[in-house]
């Protein structure tokens, strides 16, 4: 297994290089001179030159790319043009917020999605099946930014139940250790903070989790139905096993495999969807960071952030891949 992991990591290298080339090239896709585009039409030559110098745009591409890669490998993601801040440092601050949100959304999506999917499959054509699958279909068609706004309207404006933005109320004191607030509040046994953070997470989490939830529910259902048709389920039934054993052991374990792949892919959707969700809920995470950078034409930030997100996504996919292998004994890894 270890050998396999090492090999898989090894195989990631070309992908990561490709990813870095693509992000690197982004800046060169800008029609005309990127420095000019960042500074605007009337920038003085001196300003232009200094920015070009700063970005190293005068060197040959290969040299530029080499430097780009070298910097990244050393953990140097450059500095933001707008805020002059070190991007790596800023990301360190913002990533936990996004990851916390994403994981929360994912847990929500996985738990609800799988449970709904399994029940719907087991009771195919029942009212639960119909309702949950209609819901899932609605879910995959949902513009999450709209859903987010409508939730704010209902739960914050009308019912005044949930906070409309941010990660935590300003009145709450929380000693941050990991910057994952939920985790921190547990670590410091700060229940007020836990409750507050949780309520803040709820709406953005649901908004972000809706589409994956719907997709996972649909996938689980169809995968379950497929598996339930299989001969080995018939065998399990013919052996006289208890129904719950048949469903939750024999069927679910097999049905889970394709769902697992989907879960991995959904992480990408979440990381992307975070841009919209974080914008709507003023969530101080990476998504909003990229968004503001895009608006501010802060290309180094856009570049680095997207690269980091892509790397995270690649790693998540690797992880699901490994899990897949772990769950499926048919695949050998030596």
């Amino acid at each position, binding site marked *: 297994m270890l050998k396999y992991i090492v090999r898989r990591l090894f195989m990631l290298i070309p992908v990561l290089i490709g990813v870095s080339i693509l992000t690197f090239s982004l800046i060169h896709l800008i029609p005309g001179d990127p420095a000019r585009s960042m500074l605007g039409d009337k920038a003085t030559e001196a300003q232009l030159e200094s920015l070009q110098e700063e970005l190293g745009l005068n060197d040959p591409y290969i040299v530029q790319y080499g430097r780009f890669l070298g910097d990244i490998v050393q953990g140097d993601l450059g500095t933001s043009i707008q805020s002059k801040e070190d991007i790596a440092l800023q990301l360190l601050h913002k990533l936990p917020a996004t990851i916390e949100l994403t994981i929360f959304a994912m847990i929500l999506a996985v738990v609800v999605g799988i449970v709904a999917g399994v029940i719907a499959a087991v009771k195919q054509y029942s009212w639960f099946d119909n309702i949950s699958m209609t819901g899932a279909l609605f879910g995959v068609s949902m513009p999450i930014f709209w859903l987010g706004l409508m939730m704010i309207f209902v739960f914050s404006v009308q019912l005044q139940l949930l906070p409309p933005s941010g990660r935590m109320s300003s009145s709450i004191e929380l000693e941050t250790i990991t910057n994952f607030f939920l985790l921190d509040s547990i670590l410091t046994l700060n229940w007020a903070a836990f409750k507050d953070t949780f309520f803040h997470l709820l709406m953005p989490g649901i908004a972000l989790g809706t589409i994956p939830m719907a997709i996972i529910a649909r996938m689980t259902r169809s995968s379950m139905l497929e598996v339930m048709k299989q001969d080995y389920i018939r065998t399990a039934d013919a052996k006289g096993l208890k129904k719950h054993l048949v469903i939750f052991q024999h069927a679910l374990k097999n049905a889970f495999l394709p769902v697992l792949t989907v879960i991995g892919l959904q992480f990408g959707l979440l990381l992307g969807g975070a841009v919209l969700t974080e914008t709507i809920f003023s969530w101080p995470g990476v998504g909003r960071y990229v968004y503001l950078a895009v608006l501010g034409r802060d290309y180094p930030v856009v570049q680095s952030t997207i690269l980091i997100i892509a790397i995270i996504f690649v790693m998540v996919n690797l992880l699901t891949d490994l899990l897949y292998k772990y769950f499926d004994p*048919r695949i050998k890894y030596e």
Partner: protein
Amino acid sequence: MTQDTPLLEVKNLHTHFFTKAGVVKAVDGIDFKVNPGETLGIVGESGSGKSITAMSILGLIPSPPGKIVEGEINFKGENLLNKSQKQMRKIRGPEIAMVFQDPMTSLNPVFTVEKQLLETILAHENMSKKQAKERALELLNLVGIPDPENRLKNYPHEFSGGMRQRVMIAIALSCNPSLLIADEPTTALDVTIQAQILELFKRMQKELNMAIVMITHDLGVVSEVCDRVMVMYAGKPAEFSETKHLFKKGKHPYTLGLINSIPKITPDKQKLEAIDGVPPDLRSLPNGCSFAPRCKHVMDSCLSNDPDIREVDDDHFVRCLLYEDSKKAVTT
């Protein structure tokens, strides 16, 4: 019939599938009995309802769309159709066990053989895990799997087809069922492996004295292992008789057609006698005898009258108008 209390008695069984495209009468009026210790063969072409008959007995008809619309399945004197799913789960395994056609897909790929064996034993027998494991080893030995100690830890994909079928049989035997239903247990296997498995079946039957229902489309298999045979056509029995008798004195045109359309390894080659046409669509069976459109001896009455099954000889039943006059009709 010679014995008084049959182990299994299926009476006028009708299993239909209510699909969007129409009602599929997969099993449409079947009667048969299985006596303790006897092997009954069910043969017929693909789609004739063999598997559905077996599944009906075990109460495994997928519902919807399937439904047993009529009939009785008496097992040890009790009608299985009156049992709840929960009760049925107690019968499957210790009373009636089943071996399926395709050993490649019939074992759960994500569990070890050990788990799949043990869970059956533990589900029905009052045993400790250790005892169950001993029993599992015993069973694997019985079905002829070498080095069972180590093989238990393997996953199904690490076994060959023949080995898997042996494991399937071990699972089926694990709770000493009094009836074993084997649905084309050798069809997916190569001839040499098939021979191994058939040999195993014969041995099991001798050693354990259980009744077997052997479903197959291979008349060769039937002639080798079965005491009695039921030939099915389009969801209905066509002929039912003692095996040797059937091959010698088969009466139904379909049975005869089947026997004659199989090439035989005999020095003198003859042209095969094929049965014309194709099996009917079960959603819209012709009026009258469902075999009539393909029958060489078709008469006008065949197109309108659906014959009853009749006993034409001792313990020999035929469902054909040609034999309308022989002996008495079996009441249904």
